[in-house]
Each structure stands twice: as C-alpha cells, then as structure tokens.
C-alpha cells in the first residue's frame, strides 16, 4: 500500500510522489521571485519526498496508457465541469493545457507501440518545461504549440545508456 500523509486544512492525503511535485512547484515559484535561498530549501524538501516516491514496479506499458485514458475519459471532464461552474479561469487554463498534452502523450505512446524505436531513432525528443508538451523532431518549435512559451523553455531529453 502507498504511504500517505494527511495534509492541510481539508485533511487531504498526499503521497510522497505528490509532495515531490508540490515542492518542485514551490521551488520554481521561489526562483521566479528570485528567492534563491527559499528555492533551494524547497529543493531539499522535494528531494526528500522524491527519494520516498512510491514505486510502480512491475507496471506495464499498457497500465500507463490505461491511466492516461482514464484522465482523458473522466478526470478532465470532472475537473472542467467544476472549474466551469466556479468560473475559475486559472484552473480552466491549466486543464486546457493538460488535456491537450495528455492527448498528445497518448498518441505518442500508441505510435511507439506500432513503430517501436524507429519512431525516435535519428531524431530528438523535447519537453516543454512550462506545460509538459512532448515533441519528437529535429528542432523544437519556435514557440510551444500548447502554452506558447518561446523555445528556450523547451528542453531536449537525451538518449542515455545505463
């Protein structure tokens, strides 16, 4: 079973993996405000939770695809409905980006199943640091097609042997 912590006013439970993402989010927010010491402290906390991340050993490729499909079939629908009802612009913005990125991730994984390594051989893979958009190709686009950030925020992911 996952080790969970009860956190915050509404006593929401968070796993270590979730807290790792929460802390890197706050680390980035501090960096944006040029609060480098606070950013570094959140980094320490993020590293602690990353170390304790709940492992998904033995999961298969199909399990990953199933989880994306679940988000696309129900997670985004539910979240969009409540964000709409509450006229929460910020949340609607995040949901639009996230749903597009998830659809593209799904199509990438489906294509990889068919084409295997020939899909990525001899080309590059990039991830947009802002929205998570994954791009396969020679050069990253000049601006991210999902969130419109300029390409210096779109990072190459290297092929690494073990």
């Amino acid at each position: 079973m996952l080790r969970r912590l009860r956190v915050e006013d509404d006593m929401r439970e968070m796993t270590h993996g979730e807290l790792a993402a929460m802390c890197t989010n706050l680390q980035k927010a501090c960096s944006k405000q040029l609060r480098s010491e606070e950013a570094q402290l959140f980094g320490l906390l993020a590293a602690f939770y990353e170390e304790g991340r709940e492992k998904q050993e033995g999961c298969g490729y199909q399990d990953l695809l199933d989880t994306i499909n679940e988000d696309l079939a129900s997670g985004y629908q539910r979240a969009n409905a409540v964000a709409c009802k509450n006229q929460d612009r910020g949340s609607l913005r995040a949901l639009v980006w996230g749903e597009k990125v998830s659809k593209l991730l799904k199509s990438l994984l489906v294509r990889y199943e068919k084409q295997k390594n020939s899909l990525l051989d001899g080309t590059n893979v990039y991830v947009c640091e802002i929205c998570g958009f994954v791009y396969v190709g020679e050069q990253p686009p000049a601006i991210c097609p999902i969130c419109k950030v300029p390409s210096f925020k779109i990072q190459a992911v290297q092929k690494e042997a073990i």
Partner: protein
Amino acid sequence: MHAARNIALCTKDCVCLFVCPTGATDTENGQIDFSKCLSGCRLCVDACPSHAIYLVSSNYPKPQKKETEVKDSLFDLAASKVKQESMAKALASESDDPVFRQLCKSVAMSNHIMAEDCYREAGYILPQSDAVRSLLKDLLAKEEGKADFPADAVRKLLEKL
C-alpha cells in the same frame, strides 16, 4: 519591492548605472544587488531603454479563494499524473534500451510538469500564502524526527515566507 534584471533582454546600455542612487545596479554578476536597492525607487526600471529591469513584489495580494471541489478535482488529476510519472520511471529503470528509456523519461518529465501545474492552480501558486504555510507546518508536525527529513529547511522556510 526591489528591481531585478532580465539578463536575456539586457543590451548593456548601462543607463541603470547612471541613474541608480545607491550603486545597486553596479555588480559583477549581472544581477542587481537587492540589499542596496531602494524599495519602490524604480528609477532604473523607467530608464532602461531595453526594458530589461522590472520590479519584484515583496507583498503579493492574497490569492483568490479556491473552492474545495475545484481543489479536489485538481488534486485528483495531479495524483494521476504523479502515478504516471512513477510508472514511466519504473518502465525506464526496468529497461536497458536507451531509446525506450528516453521515451519514458520524457513521459515522466511531462507528467511531473502537469502535476506541478495542477498544484499551482489548486491554490499553491504563491509560496508566501497561508495554504503553503499550513502545508509546511503540517509536514513538520508529521515528519519531524524521521531519518533524512530536512526539518531545519522547513523551519527556515516558515521563518522566511
């Protein structure tokens, strides 16, 4: 509120050196010396011909209230993204194919960024907010004394934020 320089925009016009009353803009590292910068002075901000200097707030307005149901649905999505990140990491670590590992690593990074964005919009956009303070206090209360838990870092954050 102090000034900061966006190095990517700065074209070394050096007007900031000329207008700054304290010499805060005269540094070796390309950034402004925040300790010398006069709060709200903004002479350099207005003078810079390349719009490379901006003001960093020290007092942000209270974040808008997040409804519990909105927050819940974003936390649910974030949990799913974190799970996918962990799955992609497991698939990468169990494979010795550099191309497949590259794919999984990208999927993991993408999901981590999407999870962060969900938390950002769930009320954790500003580190200096009540939501973050109460999260930090809660973590400290629960994890204090556990091996490797950076309790001092959390205490320092509570002090500084």
